[in-house]
């Protein structure tokens, strides 16, 4: 191994991110080459310098107390919700969303979107309302994508994910992804036009897209710009700078939202449905 080759993987080597055999090869070189060894020492010293400098800063002691107090007040709200939940449970099997919908609602009160519940109560049949909801969910999901797991990084899992989280029947009618450059980033349950939906996030070259569905939507899509791509009809809505593409398939309305431009999001939607 030459110094040049070792240099290419130098950071990975220092960060211990190389696989074992590769690591040993580079290590062998670094141990035996004076220049590289010096450079290794230098790299380690810079890292150590940064680290020691940063960890000297500690949070003020009152911050911990403040945080715990904040958790207390968060706890105080929980029992109120618990009461509601038991009523829901006897009425209908809403177990799936009981605690999460509370979590979402609470975060919305404090953070950005605000009003998913408003729309669950007052939603109209008008399709612009779907776009409105979808964009709000999209913003929350993209910025608050707190689902941090591995299963979602596999493209094939979309059907499983749709099926498992929401409705097993849906997996039969859900779209297949054939765009390989797209990875699934995660998802969270949301409310779309009064029905529960998954909000699945995709990453397309750094751009985030979210897919949401309205099952048994019944009413046709209205008041939205129409576009045709292949044999399929799409509807496009725009809210707060985000584009949403809607289409229907087997009685399910799919809604794809992103800040991509209309053409690109349409193209992406087309790849979602073409099997």
């Amino acid at each position, binding site marked *: 191994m030459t110094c040049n080759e070792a*240099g290419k993987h130098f950071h990975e080597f220092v960060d211990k991110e190389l696989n074992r055999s590769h690591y040993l090869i580079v290590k062998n070189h670094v141990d035996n080459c004076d*220049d590289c060894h010096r450079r290794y020492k230098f790299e380690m010293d810079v890292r150590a310098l*940064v680290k020691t400098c940063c960890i*000297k800063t500690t949070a003020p002691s009152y911050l911990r107390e403040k945080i715990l107090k904040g*958790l207390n007040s968060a706890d105080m709200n929980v029992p109120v919700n618990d009461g509601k939940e038991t009523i829901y449970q006897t009425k209908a099997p809403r177990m799936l969303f009981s605690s999460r919908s509370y979590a979402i609602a609470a975060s919305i009160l404090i953070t950005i979107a605000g009003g998913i519940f408003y729309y669950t109560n007052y939603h109209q049949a008008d399709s612009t309302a779907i776009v409105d909801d979808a964009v709000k969910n999209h913003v929350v999901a993209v910025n608050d994508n707190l689902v941090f797991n591995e299963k979602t990084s596999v493209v094939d899992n979309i059907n499983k994910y749709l099926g498992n989280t929401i409705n097993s029947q849906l997996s039969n009618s859900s779209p297949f992804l054939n765009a390989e450059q797209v990875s699934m980033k995660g998802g*969270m349950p949301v409310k779309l036009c009064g029905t529960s939906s998954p909000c699945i996030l995709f990453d397309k070259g750094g751009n985030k897209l979210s897919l949401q569905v309205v099952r048994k939507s019944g009413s046709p899509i209205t008041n939205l710009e129409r576009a045709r791509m292949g044999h399929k009809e799409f509807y496009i809505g725009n809210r707060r700078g985000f584009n949403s593409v809607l289409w229907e398939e087997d009685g399910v309305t799919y809604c794809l939202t992103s800040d991509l431009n209309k053409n690109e999001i349409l193209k992406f939607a087309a790849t979602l449905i073409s099997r």
Partner: protein
Amino acid sequence: MRDDTIRRREFEENAMAYVDSLYNMALRLVFNKEEAEDLVQETYLKAYRFFNTFQKGTNIKAWLFKILRNTFINKYRKTVSTPSESFFEDIESVQASVPYEEETKSGESVDTLEKKYNDLGSLVDDEVKNALDSLPVEYREAILLSDVEELSYKDISEITNVPIGTVKSRLNRGRGLLQKSLLAYAKDRGFIKREK
């Protein structure tokens, strides 16, 4: 109610150990103690509310950092647009390996590195912090997550929502820039000392 107590205890046991780490990162993001405190507090509140979405067995520290980052973006960079970032990534990856090869090719002499090493020893914390803070935020956060928090590239990629390759190139470039500016500080000091 008992479930809540268990949940609360579990959360405190697992998450509260990282207050210092998060505060440190927050401080390097907002440069202001009060705002950093608010940011950390908000992060914990949010994490607590979403604790049921945390997958047990995965890295809770990385999860907390991700929430911190999202909270920061929501609060301070509401208008951040993804397309421009992806444009930026492209440029970044093209140039990613340049500083390194330059360095190896020029075959830095033993003296310079030796000298560099000695120079760094003279730096004070403020200078290191200034050097860090002058880096573009993407590089700064990558370096902090890697060097200070010692998270893996994979965790960093999950936190910052970019591919591992981008994490690597950010670290490469960021460290190159950081070393340059650290050495510039060190040089200044040496120069001043010698003049006296």
